[in-house]
């Protein structure tokens, strides 16, 4: 019992350090810094390099890592946050998300993707206290973490810049009026937060024993959960949330095994968002903030094709692959089509209704599993499984996300992120249903008029037809009264509600229809590969879907298709490596957010 609690506290102290940084940045810059997870990873990797390759002792390792990650924090702020200070919140959310992808995959290219042993540098089992066994390492981790927290507390209370940070966090405008240099204070906050994050990386690396360049994404997500649990923006909350989550995870792992860790983390996160979104220590402002997407696509109008142009494009999409392309290229076309369907579901949810989803892989996975399990387990016909997949995906995604409807903006995105990760974790953990990590194989191809649809061209025609139906559906919805109601919610939820629009219900409806479409896409996905496992539906799929719609134009159905061609078709055709591909996605997303927020298919109105 005590062993587990101590292990939880030690692990939780890394979460607490990371969560402190997240809350500090949220307070000062009002940004959820998704790149903070990567700071942890860079801290761990550079710490590994300093200690293993360069053979430095622990204290110089810590100082070196602090320098590296402090600089990284500064760069993150200058590249991804400061330039977007006047843009709506979604811009900085997307850009820091993009930076995290760039940093994680850049680190993979530099260090190599493999997992390596992190030397403990200190003894792990040399001390005892009344039957409780622990090591110098545990004591050191706790001491360093607590020491840093105390230093941070002193810095914020007793120094001029610390007070400036607190003043900016309380009221940015008033602080600026009093002559506080906002830019410098924000830089400082990022540096301080990232120094803490880097140290957390070294401590976490020593504790975990194994690290890889992507270690940040798992630990980082736990830190998000911890910061939200404590109350975003609250520093005591971040510490309490981190330690509490560490202990809860430790007990969960000791009862249900290591795979359960992510499941527990995201279940806790979702539960907090449902029950007490302001966290344990957070304050919730009684009045709503400004809309999340605001005029992000403001002044932008989507390109509209004339009917004959649409007809020509559709005919070409059928004819060209049939006469001119080889099987390999047609298979790429199939992937493009499936991702276009997934992206269209986001066009509806994020573009039309303004709810930024970072977890659209969830309904895709649910649809894929539903179809795969029904067709292999019960022998149900694919054509029957298709609508059922859509329906199950719709119902589950609404059930998971809609309790968060009283939240707005950032919190909705965190809830969707947690949902996406929770579904992936559930697919790993619920063996009895999903066959666990090994996945479902031998999924039969659909049949049409008694013949199996398995040749690439046949699959392509089938998927393309469904894509056109979905496209028609999305376009018609956009032009209807319902579409106008969603737009109003996107533009200003408070005003929409005061005009008689039940915002929560319509947001649920958007997620439901989006989930249905994504679920259909998932069923096609499963049939197309004949094999699925949980790793296929990771966060990278959600990221890709979001990048596709942002690149194409968040509010443009046509943009979803063009974005899928550019982001799925081109890398595949160029046979890019996985890491380079992810790196490219990240860089592209960053570039679009910074330089062309209306997307490829958005026009700038004057």
């Amino acid at each position, binding site marked *: 019992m005590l062993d587990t609690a101590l292990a939880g506290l030690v692990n939780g102290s890394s979460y607490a350090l990371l969560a402190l940084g997240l809350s500090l940045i949220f307070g000062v810059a009002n940004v959820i810094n998704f790149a903070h997870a990567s700071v942890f990873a860079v801290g761990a990797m550079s710490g590994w390099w300093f200690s293993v390759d360069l053979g430095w002792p622990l204290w110089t390792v810590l100082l070196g890592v602090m320098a590296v990650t402090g600089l990284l924090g500064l760069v993150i702020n200058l590249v991804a946050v400061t330039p977007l200070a006047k843009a709506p919140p979604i811009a900085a959310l997307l850009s820091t998300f993009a930076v995290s992808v760039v940093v994680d995959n850049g680190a993979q290219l530099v260090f190599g993707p493999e997992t390596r042993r992190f030397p403990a540098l200190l003894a792990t089992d040399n001390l005892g206290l009344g039957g409780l066994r622990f090591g110098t390492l545990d004591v050191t981790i706790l001491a360093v973490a607590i020491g840093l927290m105390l230093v941070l507390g002193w810095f914020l209370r007793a120094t001029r810049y610390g007070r400036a940070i607190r003043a900016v966090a309380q009221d940015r405008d008033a602080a600026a009026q009093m002559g506080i240099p906002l830019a410098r204070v924000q830089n400082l906050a990022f540096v301080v937060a990232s120094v803490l994050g880097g140290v957390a990386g070294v401590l976490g690396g020593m504790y975990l024993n194994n690290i890889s360049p992507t270690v940040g994404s798992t630990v980082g997500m736990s830190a998000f959960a911890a910061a939200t649990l404590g109350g975003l923006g609250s520093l005591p909350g971040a510490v309490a949330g981190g330690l509490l989550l560490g202990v809860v995870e430790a007990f969960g792992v000791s009862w249900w095994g290591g795979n359960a860790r992510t499941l527990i983390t995201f279940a806790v996160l979702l539960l907090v968002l449902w029950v007490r979104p302001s966290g344990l220590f957070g304050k919730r402002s009684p*009045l709503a903030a400004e809309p999340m997407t605001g005029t992000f696509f403001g002044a932008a109008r989507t390109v509209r094709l004339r009917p004959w142009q649409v007809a020509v494009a559709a005919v070409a999409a059928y004819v060209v692959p049939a006469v001119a392309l080889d099987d390999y290229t047609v298979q790429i076309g199939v992937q493009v089509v499936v991702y276009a369907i997934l992206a269209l579901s986001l066009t509806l949810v994020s573009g039309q209704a303004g709810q930024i989803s970072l977890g659209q892989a969830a309904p895709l996975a649910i649809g894929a599993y539903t179809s795969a399990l029904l067709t292999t387990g019960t022998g149900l016909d694919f054509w029957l499984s298709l609508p059922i997949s859509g329906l199950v995906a719709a119902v589950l995604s609404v059930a998971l996300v809609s309790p968060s409807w009283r939240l707005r903006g950032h919190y909705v995105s965190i809830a969707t992120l947690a949902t996406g990760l929770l579904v992936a974790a559930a697919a790993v953990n619920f063996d009895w249903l999903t066959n666990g990590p090994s996945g479902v194989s031998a999924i039969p191809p659909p049949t049409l008029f008694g013949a199996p649809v398995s040749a690439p061209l046949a699959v392509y025609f089938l998927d393309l037809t469904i894509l056109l139906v979905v496209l028609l559906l999305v376009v018609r*919805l956009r032009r209807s009264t319902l579409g*106008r*109601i969603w737009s109003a919610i996107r533009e200003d939820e408070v005003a929409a509600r*005061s*005009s008689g629009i039940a915002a929560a*219900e319509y947001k649920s409806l958007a997620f439901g229809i989006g989930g249905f479409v994504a679920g259909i896409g998932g069923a096609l996905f499963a049939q197309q590969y004949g094999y699925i496992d949980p790793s296929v539906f990771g966060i990278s799929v959600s990221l890709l879907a979001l990048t596709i719609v942002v690149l194409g134009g968040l509010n443009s159905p046509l943009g979803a298709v063009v974005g899928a061609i550019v982001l799925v078709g081109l890398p595949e055709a160029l046979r890019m490596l996985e890491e380079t591909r992810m790196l490219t996605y990240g860089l592209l997303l960053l570039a679009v957010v910074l330089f062309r927020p209306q997307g490829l298919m958005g026009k700038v109105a004057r």
Partner: protein
Amino acid sequence: MTVLEVQGLRRSFAGLRAVDGVSFGIDQGEVVSVIGPNGSGKTTALNLVSGVLRPDEGRVLFQGRDVTGLRPERLAEAGLSRTFQNGRVFGNLSVAENVLIGLTPTLRAARPLARWRDIPVLRWLSLLAETAVALVDPPSVRRELAEREAEVESQLDRFGDRLRPRAEAAAHTLSYANRRRTEIARALASGPALLVLDEPTAGMNPVETAEVLEQLLALKAAGQTILLVEHKIDLVMRLSDRVLVLDAGTVIASGPPDEVRNDPRVIEAYLGKRRPAVRP
């Protein structure tokens, strides 16, 4: 007939009593204004009445029905429309679409089974029916939309040539005054039983303010019941049947404009207390 009846409304923020036991009533066709120094709780009182905030204590009766704590969308459907202090329009929608959104509570064909909206789970039947209608776009919906668009035209006409030429322009391209007009047109579109205006002339110059006053007087003449929060005393005095003065969250005076204007407590709240004469 009483349109709105507010009884003992209280609401605190972190220990500060923003609204502390406010009661008042508004009769059919009356224009009641709420005035008071900055921070006296006027906007909070409006937010409590219109469902944007929940009261800690007290009751709000709207057309005889207890609507305390009802969500703003339900109040809007029941016939209480409002505008906001800082002017909230839908920036990327056109002026005409903004006003069309105001007509949402009046839609029947486009929002089938709307009565089921209050029932959990079953409300999905209504939502799905609405989706189906949106996809099919039957003649009844098109006819209804054409009717509502005609109504939008007449709402825009209310503001003369201010909004008509800009009907298709996106709301974010409008001048500040025109945004406020768009917002008022949106609030009026559904023919509300009570119109709640939060500083409709904030940020307007004297000419624009006079124009809004004329429009509000015309509304009053047509029998519109109005609850108004406003700083510009001249406008309040000319428009109101009754004036309520708030200070530190409580009503310190109420009555006809002339009476309130000369009430010593009101003068004190606005200008401060006269210091007692200093004895030599």
